[in-house]
Structure formats: C-alpha cells, structure tokens
C-alpha cells in the first residue's frame, strides 16, 4: 500500500496536469483565447446547436427522382453512342417502362455491334463483377437496358456526395462560422449552422436551383400573342415579372398579370459554362449586380452572338423567369458579363453563390429541421453552468461531511475528474449538448460511487479489527471488482446510446463514456496515491472515516 513508486506518483500528476492544460481553452472566452499562447493546445469543446443556438436540417435525396434523372441521362448516352457514333446504328424510338429503356435495332445484323458498344458504356460496381446497367436482347432485335440495384445505389451515393459539396459551397460563403455539412448514411445530408435563427433562409439558399440562361429576344412576337402565352415558331413566351413599362415587345395583358416576353428557344450560353459568379456593383448606376465569368468555350459563343446582334435585346433567364432584357450595346468578348435585375446586395450575393456552387445533382427533401434561438441557447448554458456548480458543491460538501479526510481525497479526485472530462472532450473535439451537461452532472454523482465503495469497504475492514494500513489496502483491493463490474454495465448503456442515438443523445453518451473512464481512473489511482502519500508521511495511529 505504502510503496507507491515515485514514477507512478509523477505520471499521475502529469496526467492531471495534461487534463487541466487541455481543458483551459474551453474555459476561456473567444477574446481571451486570442491572447492565449500558441504553443499550448488550442482545441476546444464544440457547443451543440441546443447550446449555441442555430438551425439544423436533415436532407434526404429523392431516390426516385435520382433514378429518373439517371435513366434520362442514359437515354441520351444511348442515342449519342449508337446514332451519332461510328458506324452508325439505326434504332427506333427509345421507350421507358418500369424503370428500364428498350428500343428496336432496325438492322438485325447490327444487334451484336450495338450490344457490344452499350456494354462498353457500363461500369463495374464493387468487387462482384456486377455492372451498373444490364444490356439484354429480346426477340432478336429489341435491346433492353436496365439499371441494376447496386448501380442505382452507387449512383445515389455519388449524387449525395456531390450534393453535399454543393450544399456546403452554398452555405459556407454566407459568412457564418463552423458550419457542419456531412452525409449521414447513404442518402442523407446533415446541415448544422450555428447562429442562424431562420431556417427558411437556409432552405432557400440550399434549394436554389439557379438555372441561368442567356437567350435572344424574338422581336417578331406580338404583345397580344405573348399575353396569351403564345409565341412564333422557334420561340416561347417567358414570364418577365419585373419588366419596365412600355417595352414594345413585351405582352403586359396576361391573365395572371405577369408580363411575358418572347425568347428564342436556342440558348446562347447557360450556367454550365460559368467559371465564376459573385456580387458586385454596377459601375454606372451603383446598383447591386452579379458579375459572372464564362469559361473559354462559353466566352467564345457569347462573344460571337453578341457581335452578330449589336443593338438587339437579349435576355437573362433565371429558373424560367426573365431577370432583365438589356440591349447589346457592344460585343462582349472578354467572357465577363453582369447580370442585372432588381437585386438587393443580399439577393445578388445569394444568386452569385447559387450560380458558382453548381447544380444539385439530385432533389433534396427536408425531412427534419429544428431551430434553437441563440437566446434560448445562452439561457441553457447559464442555467446548465449554475446547476453544474451547485451539484458539484453539494456533492463535495456531502462527501467531506461523510468521510472527512477520505472525503477530501475523493473531492480532489472529483475536481481532477471534471478537468479530465473537459480535456478529453476538447481533444476529441466532442460536442457538448444540453443533455451532455446533465451527463456531466450525473458523472460527478457517479464518480462518487467508486470512492464510496472504497471508503465503505475501509470502514468495514476497520470494524473487522484490521490495522489501519491493512484496512486501507484491503478496502481498495476488495472494492475493485465491484467498481469494475458496476462501471462495465454503465459503459454498455452509454455505448448503446452512442451507437443508436442521434444528435443530443450522442452528446450525452460521449460525456458519460469519457466520464466513466476518467472517474474510475481518478477514484482508484489518484485517491489511492493521495492516501498513500499521507499514510507514509504521517503513519496514522487512528483513522477517522
């Protein structure tokens, strides 16, 4: 009992010192942290949304929509490969039914050729030799191309990964910090934005489709025709909500009151050919606009068309609505342009983000959402802190009054334990949630248990007439099995919470798991060391416990 080697004493103090050092950044305010020396660890405990305030969204990819999109893309690929490839394979209409594509090959001798070329387009999935599409021949000349389940799953998972990055690009530049965007399972994306109280704005930001097109205005369309929603062949009537009054080629008299303008179906340049887009101000009017830059191919096309149509109007179309339709004053050759519309700085900024972040590859539905106002979060932190302090003090006093000197040692272990928990959470970058605070308080209470078991055991051994040092020795030894077994059960419960839990529950489980480990360690090693050092120095004749 008394031979507690020096290296052990030092290593125990070292561990506690490390715990304290690691927990300091989490206890400092942001400002204090700035002047905190860089040489020391900086990692802090994250605050969960329930404490920091903010919005949470759980998005789910629409698998049916993804499957339809994939089928459409495949249909296009088949046409490109067979009809436009060499040698040309003539095929009938491609029909879709039950999620697969089928078509006739006109010339029976080309069936094998077609199948071979289609097979080459498919990709292997996984290690089983499965491919993402099956290509089969029916009735000698009908080819059926069907997606495989593995292929669909992989395509969806890929789409979700791309969508996650798009979502992140859309949210990140909007100026909020510590945004979390991550995939959850195969088809979900979790979005956590601290400090944002308005989930609607967040959803708008994520959900913006932002399909941008530049098209020429068809000046032959008459306003009467347009207001009835009709346009000459090769053109269509497109809504132009913010049309300035008195434009001769705009139809104002539509039944829904939204003006229409005739646009050529042909798209000059679309958003796919953008390199960059951001909010800026118009040099003349100082109004907010979106500055865009095309890629070389887009720049060439835009330059050629504007060159050929100087003096004529062209239209900027966003998601099927015309934003504005200015005249081409001079050819735009450099590949840079401005999108004008009735923008505010904010809406121009959002459009810029939406345009440059790319297109969402799959439709996302919001399946779970919550918002916690930062006031409520602040209130929770304050009350949680107060409760933790009161709880800790109450337990400390109670232990001191119950076990005297040994209670004091148990209390030292409790305090060390609190630092170790904070330090460990900071190292793992764990998130502290509201239930996590409850978990912390509970751990304080439970940490006492190990010491209670030991101290009660020492009392018992003393009653049985053992000598003091002998009783202490036995107390620690005999209590250890009970401490071990009791904490394993808690570990199992906490592990289940972590494994099956989500969000706040995981936070609770993390605190519990860390707390179990640190509390057993401090209760057994730390107090034992304190007792040993005291007993060796004092050689007590009487034990007050």
């Amino acid at each position, binding site marked *: 009992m008394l031979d507690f080697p020096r290296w052990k004493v030092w290593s125990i103090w070292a561990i506690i010192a490390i715990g304290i050092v690691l927990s300091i950044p989490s206890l400092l305010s942001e400002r204090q942290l700035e002047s905190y020396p860089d040489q020391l660890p900086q990692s802090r405990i994250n605050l969960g949304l329930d404490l920091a305030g903010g919005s949470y969204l759980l998005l*789910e990819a629409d698998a049916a929509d993804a499957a339809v999109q994939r089928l459409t893309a495949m249909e296009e690929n088949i046409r490109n490969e067979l009809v436009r490839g060499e040698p040309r394979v003539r095929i009938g209409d491609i029909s879709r039914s039950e999620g697969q594509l089928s078509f006739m090959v006109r010339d029976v001798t080309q069936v094998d050729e077609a199948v071979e070329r289609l097979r080459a387009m498919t990709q292997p999935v996984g290690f089983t030799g499965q491919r993402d599409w099956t290509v089969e021949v029916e009735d000698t000349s009908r080819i059926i191309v069907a997606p495989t389940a593995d292929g669909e799953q992989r395509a969806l998972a890929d789409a979700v990964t791309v969508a996650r990055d798009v979502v992140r690009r859309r949210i990140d530049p909007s100026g909020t910090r510590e945004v979390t965007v991550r995939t959850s399972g195969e088809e979900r994306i979790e979005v956590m934005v601290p400090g944002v*109280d308005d*989930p609607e704005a967040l959803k708008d930001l994520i959900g913006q489709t932002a399909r941008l097109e530049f098209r020429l205005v068809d000046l032959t369309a008459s306003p009467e025709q347009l207001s009835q929603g009709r346009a000459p062949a090769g053109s269509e009537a497109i809504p132009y909500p913010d049309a300035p009054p008195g434009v001769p080629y705009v139809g104002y008299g539509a039944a829904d009151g939204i003006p229409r303008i005739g646009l050529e179906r042909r798209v000059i340049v679309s958003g796919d050919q953008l390199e960059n887009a951001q909010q800026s101000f118009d040099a003349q009017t100082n109004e907010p606009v979106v500055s865009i830059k095309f890629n070389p191919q887009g720049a060439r096309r835009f330059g050629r068309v504007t060159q050929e149509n100087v003096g004529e109007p062209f239209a900027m179309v966003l998601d099927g609505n015309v934003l504005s339709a200015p005249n081409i004053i001079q050819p735009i050759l450099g590949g840079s342009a401005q999108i004008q519309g009735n923008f505010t700085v904010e809406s121009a900024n959002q459009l810029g983000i939406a345009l440059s972040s790319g297109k969402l590859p799959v439709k996302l539905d*919001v*399946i*779970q*959402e919550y*918002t916690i*106002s930062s006031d409520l979060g602040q209130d*929770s932190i304050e*009350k*949680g802190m*107060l*409760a*933790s302090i009161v*709880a*800790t003090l*109450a*337990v400390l006093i*109670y*232990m001191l*009054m*119950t076990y005297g000197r040994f209670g004091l040692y148990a209390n030292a272990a409790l305090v060390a334990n609190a630092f170790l928990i904070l330090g460990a959470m900071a190292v793992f970058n764990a998130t502290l949630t*509201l*239930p996590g*605070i*409850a978990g912390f*308080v*509970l751990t*304080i*209470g*439970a940490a*006492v*248990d190990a010491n*209670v078991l030991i101290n*009660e055991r020492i*009392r*018992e051994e003393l*009653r049985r007439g053992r000598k003091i040092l002998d009783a202490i020795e036995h107390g620690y030894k005999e209590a250890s099995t*009970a401490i071990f*077994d*009791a*904490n*394993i*059960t*808690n570990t*199992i*419960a*906490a*592990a*289940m*919470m972590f494994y*099956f*839990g*989500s969000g*706040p*529950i995981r936070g*609770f489980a993390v605190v*519990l798991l860390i707390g179990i480990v640190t509390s057993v360690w401090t209760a057994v090693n730390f107090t034992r060391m304190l007792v040993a050092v005291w007993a060796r120095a004092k050689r007590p004749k009487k034990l*007050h416990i």
Partner: protein
Amino acid sequence: MKLIKLVPDNTNVDFMQFRKIAIWITMLLAIAGFVLTGVRGLNLGIDFVGGQVVQAEFAEPVDIEDLRGSVADLGLGDASIQEFGSPTTFQIRLPVPEGEESEANRVVGELRGGLEAAYPGVDVGSGQLVSGNVSQELAMDGALSLIFAMMGIAAYIWIRFEWQFGVGALATLFHDIGLLLAFFSITQLQVDLNIVAAFLTVVGYTLNDTVVIYDRIRENLRKYRKMNIVPLINLSLNETLSRTITTSVALLLAIGAMLIFGPEVIFGLTIAIFLGLFIGTYSSIYISAPLLVMLGVTGDSFVHDEDNVANREQRRDDGAVV
C-alpha cells in the same frame, strides 16, 4: 468534526422478511405500468410521431380553449396545443402535410397568418419539423438501444456471475422501465429523444446498484458456504446498505440541483433520472436480490468447478445432495 453516518454501523434490517410480498406487489405495479402505457399511451413528441411544432408567444395570456378553436378554424389538420412554461407561451403541434416540402412551410405560414389576425402582437417563432419516416427511425433506434442495452448488460452479468443473476437483473430492469413508463403515462409529460437517454441512464444506474449487491452476495457465497441463502442475502444487503444510501444521496443531490437550477428544456430528462434513482435503489434491494432465492441460487453457485465436482462427489457419498 463529527462525520455523518446516514446508516449506522452493523445494521441488521431483515429485508428478506417481506421479500415475497414486495416482489409480487411491485412486479404487479410494473406490469400495471406497462398495461397503463398500452391503454392510456404516452405523450410522444414529434421526435417519434413526426409533425411540426412552433412556439407562439402572445402579448397577453390566452385561454387555451379559445386558442384551440382559432387553430381548428384554420383547418390545418389535427393540431395539439400545450401551454409552454407560461400562460402567454404555447406550443402548437401540427401534422406534416403530404407532398412537397413547401407544403410544410405553407401550413406554418397559414398558422402564423391566422394567429396574427386573431391575436394581434403574437410572435410565432420558427419551429421544428420531423417527417414521418425519420420519426419512425428515431423511435426504432430508441427502442433498439434500450433493448440492446438491457440484453448486453444481462449477458455480461450472466457471464460474470451465473444465469440467475442475469435473469434477476433483467427482471429488475423490466420493473424499473414499467414504473417509469407508468409515470410518463400518468403525467403525460412529453416523451422525446432525451427521455430515451434518461431511460438508458436509469438502466445503467440500476444495474450499477444491482451489480454492487450481487458482487457482495457472490463474495459472501464463497466466504460462508454453509450459510442459508436467505440470511446470506440479508447480510449482503446490510453490508452494502451504507454504500447504497450514500451513493444514492450523492446522486440525488447532483440531479436535484439539475432539476431545480437546470434549464427547463431538459426537465423531462432530469425528472426521469431523479425518479429512476429511487426506483432503481428500491428495486436492486427488493427485486434483484430476493429473485435470486426464487431462482435457486445456493452456496454451490460460485464454487470453483474442481471444488464443485469434488464437493458433489463427496456429498453424494453422504447422500446429502438434492
């Protein structure tokens, strides 16, 4: 300084005297708890049933029945309304309409518009939404975590002790869960994901308590081979009583502080744990220990295998073995 001793030294309470009646009464209570929960149901939050919730803060106190009427007039589906902390704050829960996500926004928009027209100065905050699929998953995960935690712990106890102890621990858990469910069914406090965490904590704590007692029973079974099982369990309970009470008081102090000073948002979680501490302490004494007698634990249960064989053979010669 005089130290506190809540439990005097060398107690000798005859716990086992009432064991049969105690087991039957509380087990019946626990079963009644399950039945009550089945019949009366729980006030499940949107975590588990799906839907959307908004908080409305009114300028002045509003009669809940009036509010129910106004919300019903909007025709937004089956709404449920609860007072939330003060008579000017209400939580309004609505079903998530079928179809597009914009539908859900539309419904909240209509609710906001309707309430603003009927009660000037009302502030309808942004809310919380859980779709049907997610809520089913959350409910499933909650139930699974509870079941697996119970199974895992029981299996552990079975391996570390004997099968009777595993069964005893499981029965104790059923008892605790039954009573806790009854509490939530009677009070109709909202059951959300946090409550699952509370249940799991209670499960962990109860077993913590039970295991400490089992541990002592095992130790005494090895020490006093000849002692009859009933007085042996009584002895073990008395020996661990001081620890049981001291730890429970410490935990009650900690959780009590959380209950009084902590944020209201986790009131459900803390009250469940607080209550669970009482139930757990009781059941580890009156359910888990006496059940061992009923399941036939004897002095032979923990003798090493070799000893066991030797013992049996020896006793067989005596003809004393049953």
